[in-house]
């Protein structure tokens, strides 16, 4: 088929109608699956990331070496499976949790499973940025390991965590587009099944443009928030 013919006035008119009728719901689906998956991934990944830092042999609360190795291997394993394959692999798990493996709600399960190891690594790197001297100071005040995590390490790394969580959200949003391939809703599904499979390239491009805009907005907001929360940058 002729590529240029996808952008005739009629096709553009059709894409415009699609934008008005289909896009609002698709955007909503994309956003809520992204945000819910990010939320669940943080719930699992944040404590895991904390353990990766505090549990190592020189950490503030060392855990048994084999357990740390197991956690690291598990995270690397999940991180190395391509998302689109992971999604199919864990269909049984998705069925157990949601009752079905098809649809936007069902897509949150594989999204979470794919994202929490990623989040754990991001949290790990944020916490490693905390000046070890400050942690030593907290120990010298008689802080327990739990207090060091909750009162020193996490509060001190808030700007870095915001930056990394922004990165996570935009990455997870990229995954939601892929989940369109196996029945997850959203802009990805719209672009694939409506735009690509039905040769409505104008719709495909429009969906991509909207995704780009949303990503930009989230990224800019995250960057702004991180800078605003960082008290090291305050003017004298």
């Amino acid at each position, binding site marked *: 088929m002729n590529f240029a013919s996808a952008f005739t006035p009629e096709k553009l008119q059709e894409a415009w109608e699609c934008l008005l009728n289909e896009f609002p719901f698709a955007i909503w689906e994309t956003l809520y699956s992204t945000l819910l998956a990010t939320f669940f991934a943080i719930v699992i990944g944040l404590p895991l990331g904390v353990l990766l830092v505090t549990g190592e042999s020189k950490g503030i609360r060392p855990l048994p070496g084999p357990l740390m190795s197991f956690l690291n291997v598990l995270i690397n394993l999940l991180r190395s499976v391509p998302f689109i394959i992971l999604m199919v692999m864990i269909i049984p798990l998705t069925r157990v949790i949601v009752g079905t493996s098809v649809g936007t709600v069902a897509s949150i399960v594989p999204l979470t499973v794919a994202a929490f190891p990623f989040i754990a690594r991001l949290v790990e790197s944020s916490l490693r940025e905390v000046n070890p001297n*400050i942690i030593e100071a907290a120990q010298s*005040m*008689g802080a*327990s390991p739990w207090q060091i995590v909750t009162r020193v390490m996490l509060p001190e790394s808030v700007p870095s965590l915001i930056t990394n969580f922004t990165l996570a959200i935009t990455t997870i949003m990229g995954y939601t587009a892929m989940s369109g391939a196996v029945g997850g809703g959203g802009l990805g599904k719209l672009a694939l099944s409506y735009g690509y499979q039905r040769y409505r390239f104008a719709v495909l491009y429009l969906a991509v443009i909207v995704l780009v805009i949303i990503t930009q907005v989230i990224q800019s907001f995250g960057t702004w928030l991180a800078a605003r929360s960082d*008290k090291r940058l305050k003017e004298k």
Partner: protein
Amino acid sequence: MIELRNLSKLFTTTDGPVDALRHINLTINNGDIYGIIGMSGAGKSTLVRCINMLERPTEGTVLMDGVDLGTLNKKEIQKIRRRITMIFQSFNLLMQRTCLENIMLPLKLAHVPAAQARARAMELLETVDLPNKANAYPAQLSGGQQQRIAIARALATEPEVLLCDEATSALDPKTTHSILELIREINRKMNITVIVITHQMSVVQEICNRVAILENGAVVEEGEVSEVFSNPRSNATRSLIYPEMAEGMMLFDKGGQRLRVIFNGAVTEPLIARMAMECGIAASIIGASTRSVGDRAYGYMLLDIPGSPEDLAKAISFLSNVPDVTVQVEAEYSGEEAEK
């Protein structure tokens, strides 16, 4: 009272074991401002961290009022650390918290109610003379101000002992002076024992009453500051008191007979000129670090005595007859150089 008994710390590194501390015995009395001084790598940071059990000694004991801190469990150690607090070279304030929140932190860790902690923190801001910085962030303060906040934070739990780990090393001389003044004031007014870790003799000189000199993990000299200063017995002490002199000796590499002349409050007089005239010995001054207090001289002078061993003996007898002057032959330097 803090007592260190036969304290040793062994670090196992990839290059094999390292003796960070070797059989340290020290007694720090209540009310002391006790200086522990040494070159970098002498083990002073490890030593101070053994006192609050941030480092567990490999051998020996740390006693606080007779209690062996090594036998305490984690919870008890956490409680002890409210009584032995610490300030650092790099201040180590929480950068994302206001000054007030930083000072409140140790109180919150000790589960003190927020209102009470806040009142105490405000009081401490007054103590360290920064009452209007409650809501400022550390990044907005100068180094000296940050150290003041760190001191306030260290005082929050009303400790009995304050450990200062190179607390003024990152500060300029004027700020150093004002921080030392503050530490002295705290020592006097709150009756807090202070242990000062430093590589700067001037710090010890300014505030300490007792001092221990640490070299390669061992205490080589210990005593009243005035005594150690006027009559240093070890090389480590000398090179710390007169660092410029040690350098002078390095530069002067021709072999020869060296004399160290120590002034313990001698009357200022043209000593070297008199020696030249009366004994005919033209000594060269390799290095000197002396201070005059009134018309009295304190300090050191390192002389190179040319000529035969008889000339050296003559110089020694001339100099030792001068009141309040002691003379030592610098054996190791002439010996070292004679070998070459």
